């Protein structure tokens, strides 16, 4: 295979001064042929059903369009790599060495302004939306979206403790989310406990489950750990489906009590939130309250994580991520270190889960499938493992992005009226995960801020940090 690598990082192409059009055309044609092979028959024929019959509908036009697109993209890629190779061939006086070192202040420079900015926007978000949309009821959609994004930010930050800091790839994080959600749902519907009592209980239960599930997997590493956590996540979901007596099975638990504003329910009558504060009753009060609740929970997660990073346990996590064997030989108790990472990560998952239950008022096992774990993991990975602000940005992009896609009505004009971008959401999502790993395996923010500093602060580029076995 002499075709230039798609990433062009693996091998540096031979420096050619001019763009070899013939070779590029030939290669593009070959790519298009491969695409043709790939799309037969899965794209070329559509299986349609009517009644019990199944028949095929050919759609060669679609295949032709896709092959043409592949051809064009491949040609562009060739032109791009050729011009890049040309630029690299002309020596630049600025690049005496490879530019591996990130400027020490660049990341801190950004984060100094970015963090207060994001925080400000997050705090003022309902007000901003209220002003822009011109009414409480009109802003409902946006506040709901904000809640959804913040839930994923919180889950991302929770998983970041396990994956980003301790370097343990957990594919079953959604299990703890489920434990939290079901804890609240069951405790409130059977014992009538209020949200404010259930929230810490859900966290404790999830942490407990984190320990239980974490304990057997302590000696596993890397891929095996990931697969076992995936198995645990699936087991939890299957048990939730099949243990009908407790969980009501696939039908789920409905009519879960709503959260109150420190004892004041969000009802229209006397003694409700609106009446006590002399406001006109509006259902949006509860939504905005939920928004600030998840914001506080997410910030709490962030705050605890940032603090923990400075404690010995946080440093042990990061040491464990870098090299487990070195860690053990330095006398760090890897058992306790891993278990605390699992437990604390799970605890925040549990908080988020019980928030999910109180927001939806309904939980069912379908909300906790593997895909959910994959989405949370993707948020952590895209954000750059270990970077808090990166995770937040990734959550906004991954959760908010498809919503924006849904609202782009002009797409329907291009692709026809039957076009529903939401169908393509997961498709793009999977492709995005691959593309991210190929182009920026360290995530959007690949800088790693050291937690221990000698004399002066320096940001370390992610590419300098080599991960050991462990």
């Amino acid at each position, binding site marked *: 295979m002499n075709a230039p690598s798609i*990433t062009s990082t693996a091998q540096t192409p031979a420096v050619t001064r001019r763009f070899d059009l013939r070779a590029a055309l030939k290669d593009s044609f070959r790519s298009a042929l491969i695409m043709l092979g790939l799309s037969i028959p899965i794209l070329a024929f559509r299986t349609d059903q009517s009644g019990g019959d199944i028949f095929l509908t050919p759609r060669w036009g679609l295949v032709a369009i896709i092959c043409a697109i592949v051809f064009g993209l491949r040609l562009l890629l060739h032109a791009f790599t050729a011009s890049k190779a040309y630029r690299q061939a002309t020596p630049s006086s600025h690049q005496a060495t490879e530019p591996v070192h990130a400027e020490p202040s660049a990341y801190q420079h950004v984060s100094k302004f970015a963090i207060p900015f994001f925080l400000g926007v997050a705090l003022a978000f309902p007000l901003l939306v209220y002003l822009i949309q011109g009414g409480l009821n009109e802003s409902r959609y946006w506040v709901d979206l904000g809640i959804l994004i913040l839930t994923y930010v919180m889950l991302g930050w929770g998983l970041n403790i396990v994956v980003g800091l301790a370097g343990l790839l957990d594919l079953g994080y959604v299990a703890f989310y489920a434990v939290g959600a079901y804890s609240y749902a069951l405790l409130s519907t059977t014992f009538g406990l209020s949200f404010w009592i259930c929230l810490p209980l859900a966290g404790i239960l999830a942490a407990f489950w984190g320990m239980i599930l974490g304990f057997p997997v302590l000696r596993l590493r890397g*891929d095996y750990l990931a697969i076992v956590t995936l198995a645990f996540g699936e087991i939890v979901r299957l048990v939730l489906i099949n243990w009908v007596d407790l969980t009501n099975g696939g039908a789920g638990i409905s009519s879960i009590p709503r959260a109150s504003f420190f004892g004041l329910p969000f009802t229209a009558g006397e003694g409700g939130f609106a009446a006590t504060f002399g406001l006109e009753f509006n259902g949006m009060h509860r939504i905005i309250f939920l928004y600030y609740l998840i914001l506080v929970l997410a910030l709490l997660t962030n705050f605890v994580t940032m603090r923990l990073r400075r404690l010995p346990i946080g440093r042990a996590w990061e040491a464990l991520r870098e090299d487990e064997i070195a860690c053990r030989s330095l006398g760090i108790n890897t058992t306790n270190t891993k278990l605390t990472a699992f437990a604390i990560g799970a605890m925040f998952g549990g908080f988020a889960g019980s928030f999910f239950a109180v927001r939806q008022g309904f939980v069912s096992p379908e909300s906790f499938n593997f895909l959910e774990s994959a989405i949370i993991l993707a948020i952590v990975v895209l954000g750059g493992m270990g970077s808090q602000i990166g995770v937040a940005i990734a959550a906004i992009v991954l959760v908010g992005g498809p919503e924006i896609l849904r609202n782009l009505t002009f797409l329907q004009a291009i692709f026809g009226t039957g076009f529903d971008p939401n169908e393509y959401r997961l*498709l793009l999502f999977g492709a995005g*995960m691959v593309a991210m790993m190929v182009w920026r395996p360290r995530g959007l923010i690949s800088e790693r801020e050291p937690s221990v500093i000698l004399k002066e602060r320096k940001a370390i580029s992610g590419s300098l940090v080599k991960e050991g*076995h462990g």
Partner: protein
Amino acid sequence: MEIFVQQLINGLTLGSIYGLIAIGYTMVFGIIGMVNFAHGDVFMLSAFISLIFFLLLTTWLGISSVALALLIVLVVAMALTSLWGWAIERIAYRPLRGSFRLAPLISAIGVSIFLSNFVQVAQGARNKPTPPMVQDVIVLFQGESGYNVALSYKQIIIMVVTAVLLTIFWYLVQKTSLGRAQRACEQDRKMAALLGINVDRTISLTFVIGAALASVAGTMYLLYYGVVSFNDGFVPGVKAFTAAVLGGIGSLPGAVLGGLIIGLIEVFWSAYFSIEYKDVAAFSILAIVLIFMPSGILGRPEVEKV
């Protein structure tokens, strides 16, 4: 007793399918040390390819002989699925060689999500039934209570095809220069490259072989169950991975043995315990095997290099 024999037959059939998928996992893990998470979805994709070709052959070209149609479907599906396997390796895994250790796994999860949703978008979300293909059965013996132990032609086809293909691929890996190159890469990739083995091509071929066997499994799955949907890749994929680990990852006979054991466990569990918890049983076996005997039945114990 009759039920036991019947379940034994069913379990071996299911186990053959799992074994075929498991080989793809075990070979890829052996050579580049990654869990090819997307392998289950390649299997699902191949079942779709088989379905469409079977419909093409029978309804459009009017081939009435089911045996001939199946043979053509098998060959074509193997070729096309191999191309998919090759393309996936080329696009999603090859650029990541030398990246950090979790990158290939995350990329594979991405491919898995992509493939299942690609099929969903391209073919719709509903279950796709096939017209019944092979329906004859041989009644082996009749029980006293009127319960017949039957061996269907389908099951015979599946077991025979599995056995034949395994022999072919076993020969390929053990006796040919390709197999030698592959085993050399498994032991030491850098050294193999120094000795003039094209490592990239060898790895590509490993993926191609894995995909080809998965496509056989896909065709057999379609033949056996007669229905396929876009999310049928995940659970069989995980079970086949369990089989690969149980047999000892990196070992070809181990993968088949593991597949048969998993198939039998699943079938007997459903028959004698509860059918609802059969997937829980499979996932539990996966966790237990990985935790307590990660080198499996026929595998070599992993040596920890510092």
